[in-house]
């Protein structure tokens, strides 16, 4: 099942912000109530928006912009019904939107239609018009829909109860049993209540989705390579002599020298990488590059051959050396382009001001702290200005899209580096792409979440956030940055606002626990374990 992350970002009316705050607070109080006609807290929202995993409403305020009202939704399926569901679930949503600015242009008419007194005009078109798609999003339990998470959790608890009750029996029938026998006994005990155990589980990541993710990543890499090749291609049209190749390589070497700390990029090689692994990576790199040159020259030669009226093979042979030269030139110029960009980037990074002691609003901070650590999960919302400049504008987009696609392909099991504490998190560019919004629903305390970033996933985090104004000094967009732990935490705290309303559909379960529940359920779906070792591995999850 596919999961979708969508955020609505609307400019608030400064004079009405206190009313908006109160509406959100009142809605929260009502949901905690529990709401009229409902038995449990948050049940109205949970039932009326049946695909919703996490949702938040917050208001970002700062000296340099009018308040921004942000509604974050993380849900199953494709977008469509979610806004109508929210309208039904949040009776004061229309009143909240009335506290926002009337947009200019045709959208103003929609605003009028939804906001006049007693209006029943659907809110969905207006919300959709303010909807922002994430540049990167990360899912901890990808492919597990809410229904499945909840019922597998229920199954896990039932397992625990069954095993706990057995402890009081003398002798305990589960105690001398083998793992396979435990499986049989548990399955027999639970199947009557959990009839869905007989249905096969749907695949978490459909093959097509998998393929699309990979193709998009490959597409992005090829597109970037093509862009980097353009100067070389142009030059190759004019000349493709050995001299030009040599000059390009010399220029590349000079750029590398000018950068100075280029060698530090070696830090990106994981410490735990074995010498064999490093060798393999180097060989793979060289092979890839050679392949790139050969493919390029072959395609070029073939095109030229087709255009030449003499025999195809003969022309191909004649053109091949020339094309190889041209390919080498493209490669050499491409190398220079990369190093020139890095040089430019390092120049920017050396001059970027970083904010060591961002001012922190004590009252807001108190509110944020007060809202944290009530359940096993927490929420954070942060909004920062994007650094200016043409290079930054390009890098932030390629960086975010590239990292996003890379995560789709590599972080399929929920691990971000060595951390797996994120349920739903995303980065989006908002306010005409001038600000970077980060929203995350994670396990554990804020301190431990940030420490995870600092210690276990700092490169990726720096790549995404180092384009924010005031971020601790980074190098090559990947190094340092977040590893300035204290500065990074202060900067992140400063960029946050209080998560005024926050909803989780499963407040007790961490990402790891949801995976554990899924593993237990998958085992119980099986009629029997044929292999004793598999049964043992499964039983360790109980």
């Amino acid at each position, binding site marked *: 099942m596919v999961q979708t992350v969508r955020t609505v970002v609307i400019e608030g009316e400064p004079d009405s912000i206190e009313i908006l705050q109160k509406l959100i607070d009142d809605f929260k109080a009502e949901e905690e109530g529990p709401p009229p006609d409902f038995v449990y807290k948050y049940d109205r929202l949970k039932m009326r928006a049946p695909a919703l995993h996490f949702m938040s409403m917050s208001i970002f305020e700062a000296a340099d912009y009018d308040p921004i009202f942000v509604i974050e939704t993380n849900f199953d399926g494709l977008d469509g019904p979610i806004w109508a569901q929210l309208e039904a679930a949040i009776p004061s949503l229309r009143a909240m939107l009335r506290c926002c600015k009337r947009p200019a242009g045709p959208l103003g008419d929609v605003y009028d239609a939804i906001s006049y007194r007693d209006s029943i005009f659907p809110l969905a078109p207006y919300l959709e018009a303010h909807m922002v798609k994430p540049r990167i999003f990360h899912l901890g339990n990808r492919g597990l829909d809410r229904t499945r998470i909840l019922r597998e959790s229920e199954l*896990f608890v039932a397992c*625990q109860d069954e*095993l*706990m009750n057995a*402890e009081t*029996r*003398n*002798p*305990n029938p*589960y*105690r*001398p*049993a*083998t*793992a396979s026998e*435990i499986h049989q006994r548990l399955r027999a005990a639970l199947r009557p209540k959990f009839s869905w155990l007989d249905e096969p589980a749907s695949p978490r990541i459909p093959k097509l989705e998998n393929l699309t993710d990979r193709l998009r990543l490959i597409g992005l890499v090829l597109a970037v390579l093509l862009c980097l090749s353009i100067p070389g291609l142009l030059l190759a049209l004019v000349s493709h002599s050995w001299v030009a190749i040599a000059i390009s390589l010399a220029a590349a070497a000079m750029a590398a020298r000018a950068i100075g700390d280029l060698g530090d990029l070696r830090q990106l090689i*994981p*410490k*735990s990488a074995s010498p064999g692994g490093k060798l393999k990576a180097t060989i793979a790199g060289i092979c890839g590059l050679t392949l790139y040159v050969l493919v390029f020259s072959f395609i070029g030669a073939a095109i030229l051959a087709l255009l030449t009226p003499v025999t195809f093979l003969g022309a191909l042979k004649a053109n091949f050396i020339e094309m190889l030269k041209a390919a080498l030139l493209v490669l050499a110029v491409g190398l220079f382009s990369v190093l020139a960009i890095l040089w430019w980037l390092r120049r920017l990074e050396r001059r970027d001001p970083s904010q060591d002691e961002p001012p922190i609003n*004590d*009252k807001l901070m*108190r509110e944020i*702290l*007060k809202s*944290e*650590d*009530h359940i*096993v999960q927490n929420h954070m919302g942060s909004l920062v200005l994007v650094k200016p400049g043409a290079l930054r504008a390009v890098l932030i987009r390629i960086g975010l899209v590239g990292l996003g696609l890379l995560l789709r392909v590599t972080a399929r099991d929920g*691990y971000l580096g*060595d951390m*797996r504490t994120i349920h739903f998190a995303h980065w989006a560019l908002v306010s005409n792409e001038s600000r970077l919004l980060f929203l995350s629903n994670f*396990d*554990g*305390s804020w*301190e*431990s979440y940030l*420490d*995870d970033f600092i*210690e*276990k996933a700092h490169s990726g985090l720096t790549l995404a956030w180092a384009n924010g104004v005031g971020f601790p000094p980074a190098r090559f967009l990947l190094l*340092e940055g977040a*590893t*300035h*732990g*204290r*500065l990074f935490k202060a900067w992140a705290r400063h960029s946050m606002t209080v998560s005024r309303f926050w909803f989780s559909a499963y407040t*007790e379960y*961490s990402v*790891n*626990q949801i995976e*554990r529940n899924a593993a237990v359920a998958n085992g119980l779906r099986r009629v029997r374990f044929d292999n004793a070792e598999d*049964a*043992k591995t499964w*039983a*360790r*999850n*109980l």
Partner: protein
Amino acid sequence: MGAEPVKPKGEADAGKWGLTRPQWKDIQSFVASGLSQLPWGQALFLQIDRPGGGWLRSLRALEPIKKGLGPINNADGLFEEAVTIAFTWTGLQRMGLSDETLKTFTTPFREGMHQEDRRRRLGDEATRGTIVREGLQWSGNVPPEDPSITPAASPKTVHALLLLYDWDEGAVERWALSVQTHLNTQGVTVVHRLPLSLNLDKLDKEIVAHEHFGFTDGRLQPEPYLQPPAGNADETYRWRGIPLADVLLGYPNFHNNNEIAPCPLVPFSDQSTLRADGAPEGYLNLGLNGSYLVVRELRQDVAAFWSSLESAAATMRKQGPHSSAITADWLAARIIGRQLDGSVLCPPGVTAPQNDNFGYLANDPYGFGCPFGSHVRRANPRDGLARDARSGPNLLDAANHHRIMRRGRNYGEKIADRMVDDGKNRGLLFMCLNTDIARQFEFVQQTWLLNPSFATLFNETDPLVGPKGPMTIPEDPLRRVIEVETYVKLAGGEYFFLPSVSALDYLQGL
């Protein structure tokens, strides 16, 4: 016990942790060592009734405090006693430290251990059953910055903690009483006093400390390094090396791009012996060579602990032949995460490591030896939170970013029979040093000890210091789950600032 005075380790300490002898001269002895040569002690909790630092000056002039309060290698021959002093935020305020300086201390210290959000994070809410029945007895009673919040006051207000260590039990008690009399004349009241000990016992050839439940204690410390050693050969560094900056204020933290964390500052003055190291222009560094001391008085109900485990073991034995070997000692070892004699719990067939340089990933990845949820494994998971061998080194590094230097001591006398409640008050005066309270002590408490989702566990917290609840003991093919009551409860606690010798000079001049 300890009938002979012990030779100082002064010479050996030069160069320890990468610091020079002049640097050590500025550091209170408590930082350098657990002072196990001086097994008896008294903890005096002081309330300062008059402003100013005059009382500190007169206290420091008193023999033998003059000799014992300061660096570890100051004694001119025999090391007979040691004195440590640390202050709460309200204590420093009472002594007259300026508001400007008070603001430069770290946030947890400024807010105090019992600020309402912090209480929730540290699991110190009375509703969780982790506080002694009569309620919290002492704290710094730090007033909340926001006047609209009602302060979480304790009946006794502690401004400073004075620790007196000696090698004789009677002598240290007499000493404490004389110090108390002297302090009274200086307008300082001892509002609370605890006799401290290490419960030393001879185990094989070694003399080891025990906590009240009977487990050996005081081992398993991190090892501070000013800079990482060259090469990869240093096993101690690899397994438990931490930046010196995590123990002492004012030093570059190699884990954090060699940054020096902010220290408490006082305005520059020519007269002061304080140094400017790391302080911004116009200030002197009050924190240099000092540290933050976390103190928690944890009352232990020894008889109830062992009786409940005896009955739990008896119930489990009835379940069948697979459980026949379960005893109270077996269960207690799983709760603590060590055998009573301190040896490491290992899965069947694995030899226990002989020193502290080891991880869990290679030998005990499933917790079949030392359960994930045991106190020791939660308090320092080493590389045990890694998902595979590849991520082991990184997770070990990450874990070592949250270590604390423990300096705790028992209070109250040793129980005669662990099964019989003698009605006496005893427990652990938990003390630890760290420089970033949020990243070190609070992280350990919140993210490891009290985390209901720690490792692969669900809805259970530390069996020792957490509230009542289940604890999983992994076993193939089926784990056991036991229900554990709370036998360790908080009676008082606060964050203290442990100054350097030159900072003490400054404070006594207030």
